[in-house]
């Protein structure tokens, strides 16, 4: 258990101009009650809430622009196509990719990773080839590789982490061999909050002739993403964790890699010409976007990116860093509470367990106070096994959370402890 720390002070935010109340006013759902109390939404790692600007953009699309894209000569179709492709350009700028051909719209991070596993993996991996991932991956960056290993005879290697939730980098180095084809790593762990040294990991992968795929789902909302600076080969994230709608996500892939990869799904729009004798495929990015896409999703994601860039990712990062420090201090004051995931570099996530109280019951008691936290294994069963616990309770922050909400969480936890004592 953590040593007693002095009572936490309100953080001196690095950007005192960060007006969290004004920003909260942009999010309609934050003002609804739960059990007669204000909603305190602390489950942002599961999904984020949406600003009015995103909701209105999607609404306006269906009221004014809705039409299938890439096909029609008529006005509506041109407008919808421009909006969708305009969103793709916004994504490109958001992650500083070189070319919109490198931006594939998918259903989300999970589909993005499955796309790479299926298209890149199945065409390249040979028996005995090695795929290296870490012990703190979300199931979406484990299972696709297990499936591909079954299909190709490649083998999976897993980098361990220490009790603080930090990757053992010397072990990582040892696991990279001339047989390593791909390294998969989570940028920020959704269960532990660890921010991994992805730039360094990508470099290590490249030194061994392997490509690197980064699961960025939990990072992109909390700081700037620059895929060129990272030199990532593949970078995946989800719209709904970025204040955008569900059902849309992104796979960034370096153009040369994507060009050499066979299609993932077949159908309309990913083709150039179709006969029963031979079919040829469309150029990037359309080669990997079969069928009518989630048009309103892409456009909504574009609106979310616009909103975030107005607020400023640096300002968000600074505010959240202070809020996380405050929350960590308030929670570790509570006797019987143990934080799970105490890496030196963390973002947003506070997973914890209480002596004698199952996370499910913690979550139930907090819900009665209007507080939403997630309880369970967070799609990271290996992490839970590593700490020999069935589950944690997890509070995860976004820039619209505030210190008074953290105070309410701490009070709620103390209340739960009293109730079950």
């Amino acid at each position: 258990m953590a040593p007693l720390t002095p009572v936490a002070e309100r953080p001196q935010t690095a950007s005192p101009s960060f007006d969290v109340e004004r920003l909260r006013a942009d999010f309609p759902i934050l003002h609804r009650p739960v059990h007669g109390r204000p909603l305190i939404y602390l489950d942002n790692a599961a999904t984020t809430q949406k600003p009015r600007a995103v909701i209105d953009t999607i609404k306006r699309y269906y009221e004014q622009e809705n039409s299938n894209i890439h096909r029609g000569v008529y006005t509506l179709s041109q407008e919808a196509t421009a909006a969708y492709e305009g969103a793709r350009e916004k994504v490109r700028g958001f992650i500083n990719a070189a070319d919109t051909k490198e931006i594939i719209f998918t259903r989300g991070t999970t589909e993005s990773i499955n796309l790479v596993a299926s298209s890149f993996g199945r065409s390249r991996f040979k028996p005995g080839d090695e795929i290296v991932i870490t012990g703190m991956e979300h199931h979406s960056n484990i299972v696709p590789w297990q499936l591909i290993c079954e299909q190709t005879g490649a083998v999976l290697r897993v980098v361990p982490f220490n009790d603080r939730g930090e990757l053992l980098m010397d072990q990582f180095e040892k696991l990279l061999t001339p047989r390593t084809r791909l390294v998969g790593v989570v940028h920020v762990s959704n269960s532990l909050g660890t921010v991994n040294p992805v730039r360094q990991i990508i470099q290590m992968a490249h030194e061994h002739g392997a490509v690197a795929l980064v699961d960025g789902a939990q990072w992109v909302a909390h700081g700037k993403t620059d895929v060129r600076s990272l030199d990532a080969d593949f970078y995946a994230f989800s719209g709904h964790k970025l204040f955008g709608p569900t059902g849309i996500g992104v796979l960034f892939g370096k153009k040369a890699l994507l060009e050499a990869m066979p299609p993932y799904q077949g159908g309309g729009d990913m083709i150039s010409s179709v006969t029963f004798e031979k079919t040829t495929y469309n150029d990037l990015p359309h080669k990997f976007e079969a069928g009518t896409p989630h048009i309103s999703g892409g456009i909504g994601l574009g609106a979310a990116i616009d909103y975030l860039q107005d607020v400023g990712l640096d300002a968000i990062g600074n505010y959240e860093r202070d809020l996380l420090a405050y929350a960590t201090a308030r929670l570790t004051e509570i006797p019987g509470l143990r934080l799970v995931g105490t890496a030196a570099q963390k973002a947003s996530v506070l997973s914890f367990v209480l002596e004698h109280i199952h996370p499910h019951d913690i979550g139930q008691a907090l819900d009665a106070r209007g507080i939403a936290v997630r309880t369970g294994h967070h799609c990271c069963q290996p992490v839970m096994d590593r700490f020999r616990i069935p589950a944690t309770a997890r509070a995860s922050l976004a820039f619209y959370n505030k210190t008074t909400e953290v105070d309410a969480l701490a009070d709620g936890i103390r209340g739960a402890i009293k109730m079950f004592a």
Partner: protein
Amino acid sequence: MTDLDDLYQDLILDHTRRPRNFHKMPDATSMADGHNRLCGDKLRLYVKVIGGVIQDVAFEGDGCSISKASASMMTEAMKGKTVAEAEALYEKFHTVLTGPPDETPDVPELGKLAAFSGVRKFPVRVKCATLAWHTLSAALKNQGEPVSTE
């Protein structure tokens, strides 16, 4: 907070803090494992059935208070019942858990188990409350064979 108090009645909290029949049973005639994948409740149920009558029942495991209290109270209720009576009791227990939230269930043969009526307001917890019962059902059907169940 009244809804929460309905769910976590004193009786349930008591059985959470001090679960009854919470131990191994080396001379069990059957055993089954139950796992609630959604929230991580896990338990192992032991039962000793002789001549079609449940002589003894015990459990081990780790889970939320609803799953633990339900298992504890179930083991108390099951001792001395026939296998057929046990199945019938499971069905009655299910009616306590489901059904209109504002009605009080009228099932006197359930006795203390009626305390779980608060689960009606929290349908997500039904699986926690039924885990032990579902597992016992599996154990009774597979005499002498341990079986894993959802």
